[in-house]
């Protein structure tokens, strides 16, 4: 494939947000993915956000059928996929209609005019084509006959018309790649491997890509090409990664670094299923994945595996955790390691399975009968899911406790560049099984605790001499025998709480560039990106603000009280109705102000910037 060097004007930009939008069948996720990959090769910083329709294949051309992928790339480090796209690629009227309201005035819109037929317009309620009624006047609209030009370009290849039409996304990708001067060799490689069994499709898609590139090069409509310099990033090898991928790889790493076989019990559920899919590919690490009959069986099997000495993990989303409560409570009584991953989605009930939310924090902290404390942590970005998974496993293994890891749809499906760690930089999280008696009289005491970690011994079946029985009834301290003694129960309840409180977690760090901020914004989990972007924007405007982000929700970092006390005002933005704020207020009696959005969408940086500006200025 040859692509001419081009002679158009080249402009430098520092950042761009592009949204590819089309029908579910138009391949927008793949297009976005490829563009991201090309962009990554260039060394830009990147953040992406896919947006899937809820239906598998909603009727073609309808609003619910629209699928989109947004990519934000820049010559500096960025924190979010961008609030509003500079460029919208709209493959049909539905895609235009569904996304238009997110565009700022002046944005570029590239539309596939071939799809703007009467019928398609009618499907989404356009009486007149918006391309013709002047309603898009404030945008820079680029009408492109994407489908027919693709078909035309492939005429000589002799591929079926349907296949030719399908390649139109590669035409679009070619055009955008040209516009933003992306290197495309990885895309060509990708096409070769994706269609390895269909050389005709390899050729067709490559040709479509080139046609798109050439179209940019030649047509008048695109007068400028843009360049975005590489971002200054820490040296090292990077890959682009989604949160779910990172989480799965983090679990593989946890297995490797704990030297324990990983057992995943899972039941498919959006948006957590991909972790199961990914882990099921890595059997050579000794990883067993079991698709159980339901969420209760999934966690049950994971707990059984933990009992047998594996790193037991279960992955699900909110409705699944709601079912697992009784078994989590058992795991707490048994004091066995267990990692429970909740990739949160919008609730209650079935809610909006493909949308994001942080509303399972309460359930993670409190969603079980009795006093049933456990550790809770949350990753702050897609790549952080990797490290959070290892941290969850570390705590579970070292302290013999279930740990809930609260990811969410936003980090799970969003992506960013990830500086690859090498395995030897990862913590050694291995622990020892107990192999000998620990009682004075040569007896084995399954609930005699390690004085440092308060963990009980992990004596797995197969260990001679340590035969013992455990269960969900209250256990006598040390011996683990069934006990109804009131003083013992009081002791055990308080001990279970104390041992979670005693888990060592890193101190909370505060980003307070100028060190004279009076307002602290405190977040947790996936809001890190937009909060960070908002703070940065405020600081650039000379408004001082401090940011702290919680990774550990239980136990909370020891210095949190101190941190909170150092500021006049604490604001807590959350994608729920104020669940962390509630905890902070109760524990520290600080009049923390909740700022909540529960729309199924992540915060935009602008929303937070406005809100924080108001707080900083008006207190």
């Amino acid at each position, binding site marked *: 494939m040859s692509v001419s060097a081009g002679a158009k004007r080249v402009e430098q930009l520092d950042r761009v947000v592009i949204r590819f939008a089309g029908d579910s069948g138009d391949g927008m996720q793949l297009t976005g993915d490829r563009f991201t990959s090309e962009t990554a090769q260039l060394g830009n910083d990147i953040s992406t956000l896919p947006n899937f329709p809820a239906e598998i294949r909603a009727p073609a051309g309808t609003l619910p059928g629209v699928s989109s992928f947004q990519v934000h790339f820049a010559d500096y480090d960025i924190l979010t996929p961008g609030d509003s796209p500079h460029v919208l690629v709209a493959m049909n009227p539905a895609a235009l209609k569904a996304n238009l309201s997110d565009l700022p005035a002046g944005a570029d819109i590239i539309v596939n005019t071939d799809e703007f037929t009467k019928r398609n317009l009618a499907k989404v309620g356009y009486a007149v084509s918006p391309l013709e009624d002047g309603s898009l006047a404030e945008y820079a609209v680029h009408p492109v006959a994407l489908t027919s030009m693709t078909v035309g370009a492939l005429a000589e290849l002799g591929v079926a018309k349907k296949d030719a039409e399908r390649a139109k996304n590669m035409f679009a990708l070619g055009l955008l790649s040209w516009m933003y001067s992306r290197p495309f060799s990885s895309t060509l490689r990708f096409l070769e491997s994706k269609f390895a069994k269909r050389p005709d499709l390899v050729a067709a898609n490559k040709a479509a890509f080139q046609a798109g590139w050439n179209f940019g090069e030649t047509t008048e409509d695109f007068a400028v090409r843009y360049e975005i310099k590489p971002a200054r990033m820490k040296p090292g090898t990077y890959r682009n990664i989604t949160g779910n991928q990172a989480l799965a790889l983090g679990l593989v790493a946890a297995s490797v670094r704990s030297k324990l076989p990983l057992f995943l019990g899972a039941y498919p559920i959006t948006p957590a299923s991909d972790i199961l899919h990914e882990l099921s590919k890595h059997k050579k690490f000794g990883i067993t994945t079991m698709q159980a009959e339901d969420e209760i069986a999934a966690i049950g099997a994971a707990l059984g595996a933990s009992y047998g000495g594996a790193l037991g993990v279960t992955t699900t989303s909110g409705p699944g955790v709601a079912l697992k409560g009784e*078994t989590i409570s058992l795991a707490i009584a048994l004091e066995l390691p267990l990692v429970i991953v909740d990739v949160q989605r919008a609730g209650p009930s079935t809610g909006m399975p493909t949308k994001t939310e942080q509303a399972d924090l309460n359930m993670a902290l409190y969603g079980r009968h009795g006093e049933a404390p456990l550790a809770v942590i949350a990753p702050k970005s897609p790549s952080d899911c990797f490290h959070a998974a290892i941290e969850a496993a570390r705590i579970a293994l070292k302290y013999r406790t279930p740990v809930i890891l609260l990811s969410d749809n936003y980090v799970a499906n969003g992506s960013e560049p990830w500086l690859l*760690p090498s395995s030897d930089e990862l913590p050694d999280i291995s622990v020892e099984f107990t192999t000998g008696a620990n009682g004075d009289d040569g007896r084995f005491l399954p609930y005699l605790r390690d004085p440092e970690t308060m963990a009980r011994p992990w004596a797995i079946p197969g260990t001679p001499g340590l035969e013992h*029985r*455990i269960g969900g009834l209250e256990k006598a301290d040390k011996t683990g025998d069934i006990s109804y003694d009131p003083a013992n129960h009081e002791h055990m309840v308080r001990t279970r709480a104390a041992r979670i409180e005693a888990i060592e977690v890193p101190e909370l760090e505060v980003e307070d560039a100028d060190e004279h901020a009076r307002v602290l914004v405190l977040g947790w989990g996936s809001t890190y990106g937009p909060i960070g972007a908002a703070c940065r924007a405020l600081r650039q405007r000379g408004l001082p603000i401090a940011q702290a982000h919680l990774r550990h929700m239980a136990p909370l970092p020891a210095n949190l009280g101190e941190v909170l006390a150092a500021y006049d005002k604490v604001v807590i933005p959350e994608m729920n109705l104020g669940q962390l704020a509630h905890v902070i207020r109760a524990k520290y009696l600080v009049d923390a102000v909740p700022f909540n959005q529960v729309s199924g969408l992540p915060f935009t940086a602008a929303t937070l910037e406005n809100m924080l500006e108001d707080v900083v200025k008006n207190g």
Partner: protein
Amino acid sequence: MASPTVELKLTAKDFKSDQEVRWCPGCGDYSILAAMQRFMPELGIPRENIVFVSGIGCSSRFPYYMNTYGMHSIHGRAPAIATGLSVSRPDLSVWVVTGDGDALSIGGNHLIHALRRNVNLKILLFNNRIYGLTKGQYSPTSELGKITKSTPAGSADSPFNPISLALGAEATFVARTIDSDAKHLQSVMRAAAEHQGSAFVEIYQNCNIFNDGAFELIKDPSSRDDHLIRLEQGQPITFGAEKQFSVTHPAGSFGLKVEEGGEALVHDATVDDPAYAFALSRLSGSDLGTTPIGVFRNVQRPSYDELITKQLVDAKSQADGTADEMLDALLNKADTWTIM
């Protein structure tokens, strides 16, 4: 069970734990426990490689009394928990102890899934046709119309036939035995232990507090001969004090019949088609009229554990470096770029 059979000099006493047994005096659970403790040494498996997992119920206290590893888990979930244990530790001999409520009411789904998967579990269902621990409500095996604390006007739901249900769920080994017959109990435990895959054993168990005499018809010496049918592999199915009754298979019929002196069917638990065992299971309903005990079905099918283990072994054979090296390779297996 994959555990190596080593030469061990264990006795029943070695399998008694230090916990005081706390069933009601006279409860059928005692004799099942005793039979198990007597049978265990035969297994030839070191105690530390044996695990009993139970749910909740009187029966589910069983693990506390066995000097092996054990987990008294939560109501209905033992098959799921035991599945995770068995699959990840093929070296263990994993036994599930459960009740008619635990296994068939709240735990019904896990039970049927364990059976269809053919997980290498020996599942002992203590069927007393009542909820013992919660003091006397009806269970999914109680007779229609049964008057209990929760059904003062009589229950309105027909019971399961646990054997039929297990067969409908593709079980490879299905048997029934009875608390009062220690020898038979042990023979069925033995057959279950030898089976590769899920072995489902229904044990009729008397709850003398809340459902006393539920199985009297087949226990009482004055009636049992006429109602209890002992299945023996390769033997004609006859019963009665004089073996005067035969279980026959009338031509053209799919079911079985009991006849005085008819031509008795020869029992074969190993036939692949479960239709035969299913027909056997229909010989008695909740009335116990003619109740077979023994092994109904015993066929071979790869166990879930075996298949999963094989996938693991195959995958591991492709390991190409240390775990750390493979991890590094995995992390780098993507479009990567390098910043200097």
